[in-house]
């Protein structure tokens, strides 16, 4: 990535790893949840056991719901923060102290516009993925793990 150093503190999030966590975190969390919950359930039931490493299967699957859900919530919080920090000024344009007159005038606004869009996309996608994880969690309360 070749994002320039941005001078302004409030833009510290932009282009950084944290923003990417915000954008992709929910998706990643759900992927981990789906694969872990599904494969643990499948494998344990196929082996005819109702425990994994001494813990009841139900609790293990519960963890594959709770931990990813927590990660998705964290990603959601990051995108909320990024969304608020990238708010444009009153004229609808992004200005920073460096902007006026510099040869790179406009490039900061550029990065802010992109970051704000990513933040919005992440905000919505984290909500979406969190919902899927929670729905999966509801199912663990309703079905006994190995019922066919």
């Amino acid at each position, binding site marked *: *990535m070749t994002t320039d150093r941005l001078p302004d503190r409030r833009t510290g999030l932009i282009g950084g790893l944290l923003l990417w966590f915000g954008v992709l975190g929910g998706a990643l969390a759900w992927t981990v949840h*789906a694969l872990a919950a599904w494969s643990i359930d499948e494998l344990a039931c196929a082996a005819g056991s109702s425990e994994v490493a001494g813990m009841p299967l139900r609790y293990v699957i519960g963890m594959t719901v709770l931990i990813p859900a927590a990660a998705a919530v964290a990603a959601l919080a990051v995108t909320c923060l990024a969304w608020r920090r990238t708010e444009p000024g009153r004229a609808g344009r992004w200005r920073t102290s460096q902007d006026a007159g510099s040869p790179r005038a406009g*490039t900061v606004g*550029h*990065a802010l*516009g992109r970051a704000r869009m990513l933040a919005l996309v992440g905000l*919505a996608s984290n909500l979406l993925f969190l919902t899927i994880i929670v729905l*999966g969690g509801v199912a663990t309360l309703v079905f006994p793990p*190995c019922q066919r």
Partner: protein
Amino acid sequence: MSTVAELPAGAGPAPAEQLAARWEEPRTVRAWFTTVDHKRIGRRYLVTASVFFGLAGVSAILLRTQLAGPEAGLLSPQEYNQLFSMHGTAMIFLFATPMLFGFGNFLVPLMIGARDMAFPRLNAFGYWVFLFAGVFMWASLPAGAAPNGGWFAYVPLTDEVNSPGLHLDVYTLGLLFLGISTTAGAINFIVTALKLRAPGMSLNRVPIFVWAIVATSFMVLFALPALNLDNGLLFLDRRFGTHFFDPEAGGNVLLWQHLFWIFGHPDVYIIVMPALGIVSAVLPAFCRRGLVAYPLVVLGVVSISIISFGVWAHHMFATGLPQLSLSFFSAASSIITIPSGLQLFAWLTTMLLGRLVMRAPLLFVIGFIVTFVIGGFTGAMFALTAFDQQVTDSYFVVAHFHYVLFGGAVFPILAAVYFWLPKITGRMFSERLARWAFWLIFIGMNVTFFPMHLSGLFGMPRRVYTYPEGLGWDPWNLLATLGSYILAVGLLLVVVGVVHALRRGKPAADDPWGGDTLEWATTSPPAPYNFPVLPEVHSLHPVWDPRTAESVAAGAPEARTLAEGRQTIRTSELDARYEQPIEMPESSLRPLVAATGLLVVFGGLLFDWYWVAAGGGLLLALTMVGWLWPPAEPT
């Protein structure tokens, strides 16, 4: 091959002439085989995929004719099996994906303001491989050796005991062969869209169609290995006696289904996603306003491409997996309607807020919306496991996925054909012919596939070559067959319309519809170098934005003219900041030779001629060495 014009010393040519000389596409036989121009390659993809569509369509007409009445004798059971397998396989792999890749090839560099794809020779290679793989598969049909295990070829029906002969070898090898082309194309799209965007086209200014092609390409890269693995294992099982899918020797039959659907479900979106991108490209031109809620549409594209990977097991509700693990897939399967719905609402709002201009491409978009919504609706019904159990492998399923695939791919593709025909050929089409085609297709499509819901609910299973009288299926089948004839006439009218446009069409203006993306800023058809000056982008709608037009007007800096060589601009991935000019390759025969080597490899494998296969491999390897050998530095 382009040549540098010899010029008298001191008399520098105008940049335009210099560019033309540098990017010249001579009309020679050799140039026909060696071209690496993304526009010519894109056109070839479109034409070739259309031919395969025609073949698959003729197969479908034969199937429907056989099913028109009970106890018909047009096709034998063996012929029926091969025809529906080839129909399904070809529609998915040889028509839908390559057709959309064809549009991607033609349009992505134009839309992002570049002069070619990132790897033009790889692009040419991908086309030749696609062509050869398609011919490889279709050639098996007249020989009576075509795949006969359906498009998803479930093991154990397809192992060497239950399916002797070459049929399934053609399927496994053909798809592996084709996969090389699709993978190469996907990598090329990703790099092109990330690195060659015109300066200023930051992520929030990338056209939705390009987003869709990139998301699709990522899906291809993640999904296709599962299919390749599946086919590789099946080939080994059949030819070399391994037991990956053989439960008697510790193998697992469900393994095929898991791997197949890990590929297969995303594949539905691999097909539909670029089509959704087409819709988002067509609408603004005919609504006279930008697409509403751009970031949310991007969200739809990105999140659908992710979710579609997590729901493969919804094709396997009938296989006796635990309820709980199925529920993880159920949740995601139904939630995918949210991002799809988001896109739908963005389109509807755009139409509501804009001033609609009713032309043929818009008609096809509306046809798409209607059909796709019906297909999505019956799809949501499957997420109810109980209903799914009831209709699995009945004609209800056939009806549902044709609504999704025909609605989700064919209508948008036809919209795209009419929308970009002026740009691709430089000719306008006849609106009257196009409207006739639309209505015949729309009516024919519904008359063909709607009755299948009913025959399915009344218990008609899919993949039967005939059925006895008096089960209540007869009228619906007859109706469906009549519908398919109407549909065929409509599709033929599209061909007539294109030929008519090429022969008689009025010359097209550069921007006949008033579109907002950069391809409309070039001539129709575009010059080999696409843009005399590479634009600088200032908004999501560069063509509607005076600052972008200014950036290519007189006095544009040399850094964006690049008339010195065969060059385009490299920019940064996120914000598209200018990095440096990069050299594009000249045309070359090597892509064709390499693809021929591959054809020999796969032909050799098919017929057990392993020495021939090795020879093909050697040819491929030598060509690759020459291809990758660093060129001598000019001094």
